[in-house]
Structure formats: C-alpha cells, structure tokens
C-alpha cells in the first residue's frame, strides 16, 4: 500500500516537475521583437541571394569533385579554377529556345516549374543560420522566421513542391514524363514518411518543433549522439527526397530519358534544376539544425575564450561549414554509387525504414520517460535500465534475424570439379573448385553427353 502511494506521489512529483518546463518549451526562443518589417524583407532577400550563390558554387564544386574522383580535371577554363563555368552555362541555358510540346497542357506546363522552383526556397526561411546579430542598428536573430511548428513546415512545403513534379509529368502530354513524374512523386511521398518519423526522436529530445529551440537545446550535446539512428535514417531519406543519386530513379536515363522534365527546355528547365539544388541545401540545412547543433561551434572550439566563437556572425561560419560538408557527402555519393532498382528502393522505404524508425521512436519515448522521472525519482538508474533493456531487445532481434538469414543462405552443393565449357560459354571456377582437364572432357563428349533442358517456351524478360 505504502509502495503504491509513494509511486503515485513520485509520478505526481514527476509530472509537476515537467509541467512548468513544458509549459513554454515548444514556443520558439528566437526573439523577433526588435525586427521591423523592412529588416525581414532584407533578410528574405539575403536568404534568396545566399541560396542562389551557393547553387552556382555547388554545381561547379560537384563537377570538380566528381572530376577528381574520376581522375580528370573537370571544368577549369572559365574564370579562376573554372569558377564561372556555371554562370556561363546558366546564361546559355536561359538563351536557348523555349519549346512547348503540341500535346502539352499549356497552363499547367507553365505553372509546374514555377511551383518546383518557388517551393524550394520557402523552407529555408525557418533555418537558423546564426545567433542574434546586430543588423542596421537592430538586434535580430540570423533567421527569417520561426514558429512552434517550424520543422513541420519543411515537410508541408516539400509536400506542395511535389505538385511541381507531378504537374510537369502530366502536362507534358507524353509517356516518359508521365511515368517519371509518377515515380518521382511516389518516391518523395514515401520517403517523406520515414523522414518525418526520424525527426520525431529529435522533437522528443528537444521538447519542441521550433528550430531555434532545437538548436538551443543542443548546447551541451548534439542530437547526432542520442538520436544516432534517426540521423542515419534522415541521411538516407534526404537523398531519396531530393531525387539524387543513387536514388535518382525519376530521371533514370536508360529507362525514362529525362523523367518528368524530358519535355522542358530553357528557363523552365532551369527552374527545375535550380529547385533540385536548392532542395539539397534545404535538407542539408535541416540536418545541420536537427542533428549537428545548427550554427553552434564544434565542441572544442565552443569552449575557447568563454564561448567567443558562439556569438554574433561566427555562427554563420560554423553553419556554412556543416552545410557544405553535407553537400560534399551528396557529391561523394553521386561519385561512388550506382542507381538503385526502383522496386528495391520502394521496398526498402516501406518495409524497412518506416517500421524500424517507428520502433526507434518508441524506444526514444521510453528513454525520455526515464530521463523525465516517469519511472521514479532516480532518473539516472532508470535511464540506464531502459537503455539496457532496449539494447538487449535490439541485440536479440539482430541475433534472430542473423540466424534466419544464415539458415536461408545455406550454400548449394558444389561439385569439386567443374567443366568450364559445360554451358557452351567459359565459366571461371568458384573458390575451392578444380577445372576439369579438356583432354578428359573430349573423351567424355565422344562417349555421348546429354543436352541441356530446353526452356525456350518460357517468356523471357527484357532485362
């Protein structure tokens, strides 16, 4: 009896202890009270220019880095180190002939690239690029705006951006764009679910969905450590979400020519191109904000001179470094991985990523419960016990899965000696196999060999 009472009292205390901290926790802490409307306009313009310049740079960067990975120089003629190559290409693209197919639905055909281009820029408005700085005599955060649901805004905008893709695919009035548009839409929507789920763990740790609050709560520990699994899932989904290699199935050249933008040319095509690169920046910036401490200096540097490097415009430097390391990761992936098959990609998303991330969210909920004293006063012991139980379950599941996998993959009986020309084509021996001597084989074939099973009536795949 007394035990129950004490437990109940403990739970009550726990709830009371959390209640005040939760009461205002989910509102943004970025203070925009000293930001007049014209300063917001200037900040919006700066974000726009920042993204445009970065896009110009990243296209050059991508071509140079991929060139280096493939042991060739990459563009190096226009301007110093070929830096102006993108500008030249962009101008050339703008002056190309603007074609509209005869079968196209004119209005939707025009609207689609506008939506795809415009939506890419919106999400960046909630990304905190630095702490409070003084701009034109006002103290204002280096962030355009923040809301209690800022991170959800990114998902919502991505959902609207998909309309650009599907409208482009449908309005072109031909087969390849339609198929590419449907593929790409299905892909983005599917991976958005896993992406949203992976972010839930971060919301649980920070107690908020506002980006400024999430950055502030990573002051002592970046969420990449406690939410490491979410980070892995997010990195996979962010590549799927931006239609980049190895997940650029929407524009698999061998299958769909250019995918949804096959029929687009000139500026309309440039809008899609711009949208794709800006989207890459957006997902990278979100990853920086959610998992890598946003604009905060790396642990060692942050301690120097009483946090000097965490103040003012220094924040922008750390933010840009983290952002560009993700961009390098994108380029690295493109340089090293081949394209995934579409059905494997979708199966991975729906049958692995989503259920596993759900389980992960449940475990994080338990860990957070222990940390917030839902399981008793001694939060440290409770946390250790919960983490121990979760890791035991994970290990057991992995062991069971491995066992099943091994049972399924029992190697087939291999003869010790093989005839390399048995099928009419030379086949190399597997490890541990001996080749049959050709002289013996000739004798055997003279003795009379059997033909191979005839399967020609079966339908053949066009692989």
């Amino acid at each position, binding site marked *: 009896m007394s035990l129950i009472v004490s437990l109940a009292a403990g739970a009550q205390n726990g709830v009371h202890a959390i209640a005040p901290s*939760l*009461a*205002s*926790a*989910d*509102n943004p802490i970025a203070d925009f009270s000293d930001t007049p*409307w014209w300063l917001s306009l200037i900040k919006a313009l700066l974000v726009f220019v920042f993204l445009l310049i970065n896009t110009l740079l990243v296209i050059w960067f991508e071509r140079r880095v991929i060139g280096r990975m493939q042991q060739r120089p990459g563009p190096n003629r226009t301007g110093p180190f070929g830096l102006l190559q993108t500008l030249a290409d962009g101008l050339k693209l703008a002056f190309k002939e603007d074609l509209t197919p005869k079968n196209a*639905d004119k209005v*939707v055909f025009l609207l689609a690239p506008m939506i795809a281009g415009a939506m890419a820029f919106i999400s960046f408005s909630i990304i905190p690029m630095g702490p409070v700085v003084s701009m034109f005599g006002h103290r204002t955060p280096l962030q355009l705006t923040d*809301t*209690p*649901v800022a991170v*959800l*805004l990114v*998902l*919502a905008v*991505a*959902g*609207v951006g*998909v*309309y650009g893709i*599907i*409208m482009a*695919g*449908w309005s072109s009035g031909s087969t390849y764009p*339609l198929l590419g*548009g*449907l593929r790409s*839409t*299905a892909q983005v*929507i599917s991976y*958005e679910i896993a992406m949203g789920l992976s972010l839930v763990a971060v919301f649980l740790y920070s107690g908020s*969905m506002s980006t400024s609050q999430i950055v502030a709560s990573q002051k002592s520990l970046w969420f990449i450590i406690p939410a490491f699994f979410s980070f892995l899932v997010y990195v996979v989904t962010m590549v799927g979400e931006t239609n980049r290699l190895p997940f650029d199935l929407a524009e698999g050249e061998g299958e769909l020519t250019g995918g949804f933008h096959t029929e687009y040319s000139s500026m309309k095509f440039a809008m899609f191109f711009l949208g794709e690169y800006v989207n890459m920046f957006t997902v990278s910036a979100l990853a920086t904000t959610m998992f890598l401490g946003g604009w905060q200096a790396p642990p060692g540097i942050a301690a120097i001179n009483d946090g000097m490097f965490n103040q003012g415009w220094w924040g922008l430097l750390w933010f840009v470094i983290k952002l560009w390391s993700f961009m390098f990761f994108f380029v690295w992936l493109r340089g090293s991985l081949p394209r995934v*098959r579409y059905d494997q990609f979708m199966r991975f998303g729906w049958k692995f990523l989503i259920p596993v991330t759900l389980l992960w969210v449940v475990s994080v909920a338990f860990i957070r419960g222990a940390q917030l004293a839902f399981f008793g006063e001694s939060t440290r012991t409770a946390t250790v016990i919960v983490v121990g139980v979760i890791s035991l379950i994970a290990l057991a599941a992995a062991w069971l899965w491995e066992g099943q996998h091994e049972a399924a993959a029992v190697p087939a009986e291999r003869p010790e000696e093989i005839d390399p020309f048995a*099928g*009419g*084509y030379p086949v190399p021996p597997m490890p541990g196999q001996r080749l049959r001597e050709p002289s013996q084989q000739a004798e055997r074939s003279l003795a009379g060999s059997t033909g*191979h*099973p*005839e*399967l*020609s009536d*079966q339908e*053949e*795949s*066009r*692989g």
Partner: protein
Amino acid sequence: MTSGGEAVLFWILAPVSVLGALGLLLVRKAVHVALGMAVVMINLGIFYIAQNAEFLGIVQIVVYTGAVMMLFIFVLMLIGVDSSDSLVETIKGQKIAGLLLSTGLGVALFAAIGSATFASPIGLKEVNAGGNITGMAVLIFGKYVWAFEVTSALLITAALAAMVLAHRERLTPRPTQRQWSERRFQVGKNLAGLPAPGVYARRNAVDTPALLPDGTPSEASVPRVLTAREQVNDPEPYAGAERAIEREIEEGTNR
C-alpha cells in the same frame, strides 16, 4: 480587429481561394479540378496559420494537400479520367432524389449550426500561452483521448479492410532477376536480354523494331502486344536511309 499584415494576406488569398473553388465547379478537365481543390486546401492552411492555429494549418497542408489530393491526382492521371462521362440517368429519378436529399442535408446543417450557442471566446493568445502544440497535445491526449483513439481504430479498420479486399495471392513464386538471367544462360538464347527497340539516332519509340546487322527488322525487339494489335511502325524508311549511308561510306558519293 485584424492587423495590417493579416488584412493584406486575406485580401490576396481570399480571391485566389474563391477562384480555386469556382474552378472546382466550372472547369472541364478532371486534373484541373483536382488542382483547383489543392489551391483551396493550401489557402485554408495559410488562413489557419494566420489565425494563430499553426499546427492545424500545417497539418491541413501536409495531410490534405500532400497526401489526400495527391492520391486523387495519382488516380486521375493513371486512369486518365476525362469529361466524357455519360449524362444518361442510370437510376430513375436520381436527379430529383439527389436534389431533395442535398437540400434536406443543407437545411439540417443550417438548423443545427444556427441553433448552437457558444461560450464567450477566451482569445487565442490565452489558449496558446503554454505553447500551441502543448495545448493541442493536452486536448488530444487528455480531454478527447477516447474520441481520438476510437476514430483512429475505425480508420485503421477501414484501411485494413480495403487492403484485404484488394489483395490477391500469387499462385506461383515470382522469378527474380537472377533466376531470369540464369534461365537465359541455360537456354543459351538472347543472353543479354532481348534487343532494344528503335533505330539508332533516328527513332527510339517502343513501336519501331530494331534493325539487325543485315538491315532486316527484328521481331524480338517490339512487344508482342503491339505486334498483335498491328501497331508496329514500319522501319523501312529508316532502313532505307541506313542502306544509303552505308553505300555512301563504302563507295563514296561521287562516282
């Protein structure tokens, strides 16, 4: 009453949503109708956000625009629904019954909503004091937890039922890519798959058969269905051009 910014937002977006809603009724093409609907839904979400209901607004956009409308558009585009629906009444008196029933529903709704009484409003500042999402969470997981859970159970049941109804068992195991490849090698025919359709650098549509080295069209390069429907393109013009080029290469133009 409303701040300047909110008024500007309203007077820009309200005409757009009215136009979208009108488009829903008046436009011919089914896809345009769906897009008009999506515009209305996005605008609704923005209005919610302007009214300090941020969570509701974002969820409106994510769920309705991003998921529900997208499914609609998927179906419209895949099936290719157009305006050529038959206007013949299949059930007698359908139009009159429909009119009567919808009028009845309208009257009932007006009567119910008109007779509702509201307590004096507290104001959104007050409600959102503890955070917009915390307030929502307290309501969903506290006061209305049963309504919420029962609804979700109902929806999950409906989704499961739809899946069961649409499910079809495979009778034979599906051959994998590897099995196809192994079978091809066992048979010893078309080891690299069937030839791709089209004539190099001239035409790569699926209905144009590929040309074999001697210039004859390859039957295996076009789908059987197209051959059966007699929709296969004649490769002769391309083959002729091919031969002309070959002759030119071998013998030159000036003889």
